[in-house]
Protein backbone atom coordinates (compact mmCIF):
# COMPACT_ATOMS: atom_id res chain seq x y z
CA UNK A 1 0.00 0.00 0.00
CA UNK A 2 1.42 3.38 -0.96
CA UNK A 3 1.80 6.09 1.60
CA UNK A 4 0.04 9.42 1.07
CA UNK A 5 1.22 11.31 4.12
CA UNK A 6 3.11 10.70 7.34
CA UNK A 7 4.19 12.48 10.47
CA UNK A 8 5.77 11.53 13.73
CA UNK A 9 5.79 13.17 17.09
CA UNK A 10 7.89 12.50 20.15
CA UNK A 11 6.75 13.69 23.57
CA UNK A 12 8.20 13.68 27.04
CA UNK A 13 6.29 11.33 29.36
CA UNK A 14 4.42 14.12 31.16
CA UNK A 15 0.66 13.77 31.75
CA UNK A 16 -0.01 17.14 30.07
CA UNK A 17 1.39 15.76 26.82
CA UNK A 18 -1.41 13.24 26.42
CA UNK A 19 -3.72 16.02 25.23
CA UNK A 20 -0.99 17.27 22.89
CA UNK A 21 -0.60 13.82 21.32
CA UNK A 22 -4.32 13.39 20.91
CA UNK A 23 -4.88 16.80 19.32
CA UNK A 24 -1.93 16.32 16.96
CA UNK A 25 -3.11 12.92 15.75
CA UNK A 26 -6.67 14.27 15.32
CA UNK A 27 -5.36 17.23 13.30
CA UNK A 28 -3.49 14.78 11.07
CA UNK A 29 -6.46 12.40 10.80
CA UNK A 30 -8.66 15.35 9.77
CA UNK A 31 -6.93 15.22 6.38
CA UNK A 32 -9.11 12.19 5.73
CA UNK A 33 -12.91 12.27 5.44
CA UNK A 34 -13.62 11.34 9.04
CA UNK A 35 -16.70 12.62 10.81
CA UNK A 36 -16.27 14.65 13.98
CA UNK A 37 -17.42 11.59 15.90
CA UNK A 38 -14.72 9.47 14.24
CA UNK A 39 -12.15 12.08 15.20
CA UNK A 40 -13.36 12.02 18.82
CA UNK A 41 -13.03 8.24 18.84
CA UNK A 42 -9.52 8.43 17.44
CA UNK A 43 -8.66 10.91 20.17
CA UNK A 44 -9.92 8.60 22.89
CA UNK A 45 -8.01 5.63 21.49
CA UNK A 46 -4.76 7.63 21.23
CA UNK A 47 -5.24 9.01 24.75
CA UNK A 48 -5.67 5.52 26.14
CA UNK A 49 -2.57 4.19 24.41
CA UNK A 50 -0.38 7.15 25.38
CA UNK A 51 -1.68 7.08 28.97
CA UNK A 52 -0.79 3.39 29.15
CA UNK A 53 2.76 4.19 28.08
CA UNK A 54 3.07 6.83 30.80
CA UNK A 55 1.32 4.97 33.62
CA UNK A 56 2.26 1.36 32.94
CA UNK A 57 5.22 1.47 30.57
CA UNK A 58 7.13 4.17 32.42
CA UNK A 59 5.49 3.78 35.86
CA UNK A 60 4.78 7.54 35.77
CA UNK A 61 8.45 8.51 35.39
CA UNK A 62 8.41 11.86 33.61
CA UNK A 63 11.78 11.86 31.84
CA UNK A 64 11.08 9.23 29.17
CA UNK A 65 9.92 9.60 25.58
CA UNK A 66 6.83 8.31 23.80
CA UNK A 67 6.87 8.21 20.01
CA UNK A 68 3.83 8.39 17.78
CA UNK A 69 3.98 7.65 14.07
CA UNK A 70 0.96 8.33 11.95
CA UNK A 71 0.53 7.40 8.31
CA UNK A 72 -2.21 7.90 5.75
CA UNK A 73 -2.19 5.24 3.04
CA UNK A 74 -3.44 5.49 -0.52
CA UNK A 75 -6.59 3.57 0.37
CA UNK A 76 -7.42 6.22 3.00
CA UNK A 77 -6.49 4.05 5.94
CA UNK A 78 -5.09 5.94 8.92
CA UNK A 79 -2.47 4.03 10.89
CA UNK A 80 -1.22 5.30 14.23
CA UNK A 81 1.64 3.68 16.13
CA UNK A 82 2.26 4.55 19.78
CA UNK A 83 5.63 3.39 21.02
CA UNK A 84 7.36 3.37 24.41
CA UNK A 85 10.57 1.84 25.72
CA UNK A 86 9.06 0.94 29.04
CA UNK A 87 8.63 -2.29 31.01
CA UNK A 88 6.66 -4.11 28.31
CA UNK A 89 3.84 -6.64 28.66
CA UNK A 90 4.36 -10.34 29.43
CA UNK A 91 0.92 -11.68 28.47
CA UNK A 92 -0.57 -9.46 25.77
CA UNK A 93 -3.81 -11.46 25.39
CA UNK A 94 -4.51 -11.20 29.10
CA UNK A 95 -3.68 -7.48 29.15
CA UNK A 96 -6.18 -6.84 26.37
CA UNK A 97 -9.05 -8.56 28.16
CA UNK A 98 -11.85 -6.20 29.23
CA UNK A 99 -11.57 -5.17 32.88
CA UNK A 100 -8.08 -6.64 33.23
CA UNK A 101 -5.65 -4.28 34.91
CA UNK A 102 -2.43 -4.69 36.84
CA UNK A 103 -3.26 -1.53 38.77
CA UNK A 104 -6.04 -2.21 41.32
CA UNK A 105 -7.69 1.20 41.13
CA UNK A 106 -7.84 1.27 37.32
CA UNK A 107 -10.72 -0.01 35.23
CA UNK A 108 -8.82 -2.05 32.70
CA UNK A 109 -10.89 -0.75 29.80
CA UNK A 110 -8.19 1.08 27.80
CA UNK A 111 -7.66 -1.68 25.26
CA UNK A 112 -11.43 -2.26 25.04
CA UNK A 113 -11.96 1.39 24.09
CA UNK A 114 -9.20 1.17 21.49
CA UNK A 115 -10.80 -1.96 20.04
CA UNK A 116 -14.30 -0.57 19.88
CA UNK A 117 -13.25 2.82 18.46
CA UNK A 118 -10.67 1.69 15.91
CA UNK A 119 -10.86 -0.83 13.06
CA UNK A 120 -7.86 -2.76 14.34
CA UNK A 121 -5.55 -2.81 17.36
CA UNK A 122 -2.24 -4.64 17.27
CA UNK A 123 0.11 -4.87 20.24
CA UNK A 124 3.77 -5.72 20.03
CA UNK A 125 5.44 -6.03 23.40
CA UNK A 126 7.72 -8.10 25.60
CA UNK A 127 9.09 -7.59 29.11
CA UNK A 128 11.99 -5.15 29.00
CA UNK A 129 11.40 -4.47 25.29
CA UNK A 130 8.84 -1.69 25.49
CA UNK A 131 5.43 -1.66 23.86
CA UNK A 132 4.14 -0.64 20.44
CA UNK A 133 0.41 -0.31 19.85
CA UNK A 134 -0.72 -0.03 16.24
CA UNK A 135 -4.19 1.36 15.58
CA UNK A 136 -5.92 1.67 12.21
CA UNK A 137 -9.13 3.32 11.09
CA UNK A 138 -10.69 4.15 7.73
CA UNK A 139 -13.47 6.68 7.23
CA UNK A 140 -16.80 5.05 6.56
CA UNK A 141 -18.15 5.90 3.12
CA UNK A 142 -19.94 9.22 3.08
CA UNK A 143 -23.16 10.06 1.24
CA UNK A 144 -21.24 11.91 -1.45
CA UNK A 145 -19.00 8.99 -2.17
CA UNK A 146 -21.92 6.64 -2.65
CA UNK A 147 -22.96 9.00 -5.45
CA UNK A 148 -26.58 9.58 -4.49
Amino acid at each position, binding site marked *: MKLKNKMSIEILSLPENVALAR*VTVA*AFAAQLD*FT*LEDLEEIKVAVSEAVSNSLIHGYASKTDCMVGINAVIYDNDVLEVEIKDNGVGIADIQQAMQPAYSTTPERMGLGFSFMQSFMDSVQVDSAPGQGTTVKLTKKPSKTV*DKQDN
Partner: protein
Amino acid sequence: IGEIRRFLRDDNPVKVSRSVKETANKINRAREKLSASLGRDPTISEIAKEVGMEREEIVNAMEASQLPTSIYETLYQ
Protein backbone atom coordinates in the same frame (compact mmCIF):
# COMPACT_ATOMS: atom_id res chain seq x y z
CA ILE B 1 -32.30 15.22 1.72
CA GLY B 2 -29.31 13.84 -0.13
CA GLU B 3 -29.07 17.08 -2.01
CA ILE B 4 -29.23 19.19 1.14
CA ARG B 5 -26.58 17.09 2.77
CA ARG B 6 -24.40 17.38 -0.26
CA PHE B 7 -24.89 21.12 -0.25
CA LEU B 8 -24.02 21.34 3.43
CA ARG B 9 -20.99 19.18 2.92
CA ASP B 10 -19.70 21.14 -0.04
CA ASP B 11 -20.14 24.39 1.76
CA ASN B 12 -19.01 23.20 5.17
CA PRO B 13 -16.26 20.67 5.14
CA VAL B 14 -15.91 18.68 8.34
CA LYS B 15 -13.41 21.16 9.70
CA VAL B 16 -15.86 24.02 9.91
CA SER B 17 -18.98 22.07 10.80
CA ARG B 18 -21.61 23.69 12.97
CA SER B 19 -20.53 22.22 16.28
CA VAL B 20 -16.99 23.41 15.67
CA LYS B 21 -18.29 26.92 15.02
CA GLU B 22 -20.39 26.76 18.17
CA THR B 23 -17.37 25.79 20.22
CA ALA B 24 -15.40 28.65 18.71
CA ASN B 25 -18.23 31.05 19.52
CA LYS B 26 -18.32 29.82 23.10
CA ILE B 27 -14.59 30.40 23.41
CA ASN B 28 -14.85 33.88 21.93
CA ARG B 29 -17.65 34.80 24.31
CA ALA B 30 -15.60 33.58 27.28
CA ARG B 31 -12.66 35.62 26.03
CA GLU B 32 -14.76 38.80 25.83
CA LYS B 33 -16.32 38.22 29.23
CA LEU B 34 -12.94 37.65 30.89
CA SER B 35 -11.38 40.63 29.11
CA ALA B 36 -14.09 42.83 30.58
CA SER B 37 -13.73 41.50 34.11
CA LEU B 38 -9.93 41.27 34.16
CA GLY B 39 -9.22 44.44 32.23
CA ARG B 40 -6.74 42.59 30.03
CA ASP B 41 -6.61 39.77 27.52
CA PRO B 42 -7.19 36.48 29.38
CA THR B 43 -4.64 33.68 29.17
CA ILE B 44 -5.46 30.34 27.61
CA SER B 45 -5.66 28.68 31.04
CA GLU B 46 -8.15 31.28 32.25
CA ILE B 47 -10.30 30.65 29.18
CA ALA B 48 -9.97 26.88 29.63
CA LYS B 49 -11.28 27.17 33.18
CA GLU B 50 -14.17 29.40 32.07
CA VAL B 51 -15.41 27.08 29.28
CA GLY B 52 -14.47 23.81 30.98
CA MET B 53 -12.28 22.57 28.14
CA GLU B 54 -8.66 21.53 27.98
CA ARG B 55 -6.22 24.12 26.65
CA GLU B 56 -5.16 21.88 23.78
CA GLU B 57 -8.77 21.33 22.76
CA ILE B 58 -9.31 25.08 22.68
CA VAL B 59 -6.34 25.49 20.37
CA ASN B 60 -7.74 22.73 18.19
CA ALA B 61 -11.21 24.29 18.07
CA MET B 62 -9.85 27.73 17.18
CA GLU B 63 -7.73 26.28 14.39
CA ALA B 64 -10.57 24.14 13.07
CA SER B 65 -13.00 27.05 12.99
CA GLN B 66 -10.67 29.14 10.88
CA LEU B 67 -11.68 29.52 7.28
CA PRO B 68 -9.18 28.26 4.71
CA THR B 69 -8.65 31.84 3.59
CA SER B 70 -7.35 33.15 6.88
CA ILE B 71 -4.43 35.27 7.92
CA TYR B 72 -2.07 32.37 7.35
CA GLU B 73 0.55 33.33 4.89
CA THR B 74 1.16 34.35 1.94
CA LEU B 75 1.51 30.59 1.26
CA TYR B 76 0.10 29.27 -2.02
CA GLN B 77 -2.20 32.23 -2.56
